[in-house]
């Protein structure tokens, strides 16, 4: 991953504008880091595009049933009367794209691609967000503890992170999914599958967050304002909460965004390999696996899920990049 972000809490307090424009005293406020970042972000058109796309995708995933009801057909419904029985492709040209079927038909069984893509977004985003949440919680907690307390606590946690980072991730995810039984802890079938996938991805990606947070905490710990707080008699927990954690929000946010997209790709990879969510639930990765088998019959079928993944991941990337640039001008464009 890219160079760690340098968060300079103290630099952000300069306000030359107020002096120059002679503004009313009441309006002279220190702009917090967040406000400055927000201003920079607003000016970054590309990042904004990414951000807006992300929001649209989230909305699409949440309102999938409504969208599909209005614009498409149920995602698992077959429409084989529209498919050539021998060749397997849609009878109508352009992949069967029409007002009825906005993105055309899936070859063979004639399912509505539009609704499958929309529902597929649910799986990708759900797994991406939840897994990242798990990684964030574990990673931030352990990273802060390691960075702040140092000593053998740090040593143990840092070595643990090393061990996790050494695991062949995809391999492990595949293996764990394969090893676990079909019903456990009251869940079963696809629900269990989803939970396992989320848990495995989250559980194995926490070190990425942990490493960053640990590095940040270590540098923050040595800062003057922490020393000042300590000399004023503040105890560790309050230092952690009042001084360190707020300054971690920025990098954690940036890396969370980047981690989400990694996890979305991870889920797609697992579906592609056939160890993700079971059919018939649509998932973009498994749609790609299907697409390979019919690329002669329906070339568009390869493009559509691939583009869906691409657009989603790219959007998170652009937004995450923009966020990082907004928070630290030195790596700007």
């Amino acid at each position, binding site marked *: 991953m*890219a*160079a760690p972000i340098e968060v300079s809490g103290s630099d952000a307090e300069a306000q030359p504008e107020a002096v120059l424009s002679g503004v009313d005293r009441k309006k002279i406020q220190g702009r917090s880091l967040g406000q400055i970042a927000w201003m920079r972000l607003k000016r970054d058109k590309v990042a904004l595009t990414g951000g807006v796309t992300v929001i649209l995708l989230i909305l699409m995933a949440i309102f999938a049933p409504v969208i599909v009801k209005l614009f498409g057909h149920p995602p698992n419904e077959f429409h084989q009367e529209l498919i050539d029985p021998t060749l397997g492709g849609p009878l109508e040209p352009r992949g069967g794209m029409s007002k009825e079927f906005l993105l055309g038909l899936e070859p063979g069984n004639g399912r509505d691609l539009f609704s499958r893509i929309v529902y597929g977004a649910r799986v990708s985003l759900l797994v991406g967000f939840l897994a990242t949440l798990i990684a964030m919680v574990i990673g931030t907690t352990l990273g802060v503890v390691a960075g702040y307390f140092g000593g053998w606590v740090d040593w143990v946690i840092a070595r643990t992170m090393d061990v996790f980072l050494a695991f*062949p991730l*995809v391999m492990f995810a595949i293996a764990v999914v394969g090893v676990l039984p079909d019903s456990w802890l009251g869940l079963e079938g696809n629900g269990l599958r989803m939970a396992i996938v989320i848990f495995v991805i989250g559980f194995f990606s926490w070190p990425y967050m942990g490493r960053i947070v640990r590095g940040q905490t270590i540098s923050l710990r040595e800062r003057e304002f922490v020393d000042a707080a300590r000399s004023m008699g503040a105890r560790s927990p309050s230092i952690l909460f009042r001084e360190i954690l707020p300054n971690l929000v920025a990098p954690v946010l940036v890396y969370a965004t980047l981690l989400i997209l990694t996890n979305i790709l991870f889920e797609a990879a697992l579906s592609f390999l056939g160890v993700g969510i079971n059919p018939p639930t649509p998932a973009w990765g498994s749609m790609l696996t299907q697409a390979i088998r019919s690329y002669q019959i329906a070339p568009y079928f390869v493009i559509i899920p691939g583009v869906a993944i691409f657009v989603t991941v790219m959007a998170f990337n652009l937004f995450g990049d923009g966020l990082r640039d907004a928070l630290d001008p030195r790596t700007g464009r």
Partner: protein
Amino acid sequence: MIAFFIRRLVGGVVMLLVISAVTFLIFFGLPRAAGQSTDQLAARFAGKSPTAETITAIKERFGFDDPLAVQYGNFLKSIVAGDTYDTGVEKIDCPAPCLGYSFRTNQSVTEQIVDRFPITLSLVVGAAIIWLLAGVSIGVLSALKRGSLFDRAAMIVALAGVSLPIFFTGLLSLTFVVHAWELLPPVSYHSFMDNPFKWASALILPWVTLAFLYAAMYARLTRAGMLETMGEDYIRTARAKGLPERTVITRHALRASLTPVLTIFGLDVGLLFGGAILTEQTFSLKGLGNLALEGVIGSDLPVVLGTVVTLSLAVIVMNLVVDVMYGILDPRVRLS
């Protein structure tokens, strides 16, 4: 120097033990925690529907009814000292390092791993060289030409590169480059020893596809690192001293900014041995990743266990290599 190396080596071995212990726990402890009986575990281990006698034999052989620590100890012992398996019909010798025996395919796991290792190795090495060279060069150029058309175009392409799943780009390139336009021969593995040219031309497509993804990451990484370094005081000093720009860049800026890149490079290459599974599946290459996947699909526990441990070994070895290289290059590291 030797002390440094030994310290690192010991650290690596400890890591490997820890990883293998955790792996062992996951494969042998987790199912138990999830309520599976040792009979069921033995059945999974046999990788097939065994008779009651076979199950009893396996349970005894591998000590499934023993405490986990004992089982782990046996596993380690067989890695170090080899093992013999009695299939009831013949006694099979599994020489050290014995990573297990697959009852499904009737081969020792080590044999299968050794057989498939060159394929994954070829894939990783080829791609790594390409992406390191391409990624770093583009990153450096972008940093130097910051803000220019080249920079912006390169960064956009790089962003696209990391956003595209490799199985998507792989499929597209396979469909068009090999099948539709026939620009390259079908992707397959030919031994390097037999014919280096064939080896390269049949693997160039997966190399490039894989490298595209990583080169994109490394371009961005290098660029960010360069920009940061170029803004440092000592660079200004070097320039002020009158050193030619080229020296400033290569001797000072590049060197400093490459340090994080190399660290990550080592880790990435190590992880790629396991991560290449997607590329292997896309291009139908029968490497280690494919072996593990087949093991999972076929419920062949020994194969999965053995492969995962081997792949972790790759990461640890690469980490060790990178650490040692730093130790050689930077005396401060040695003494810490």
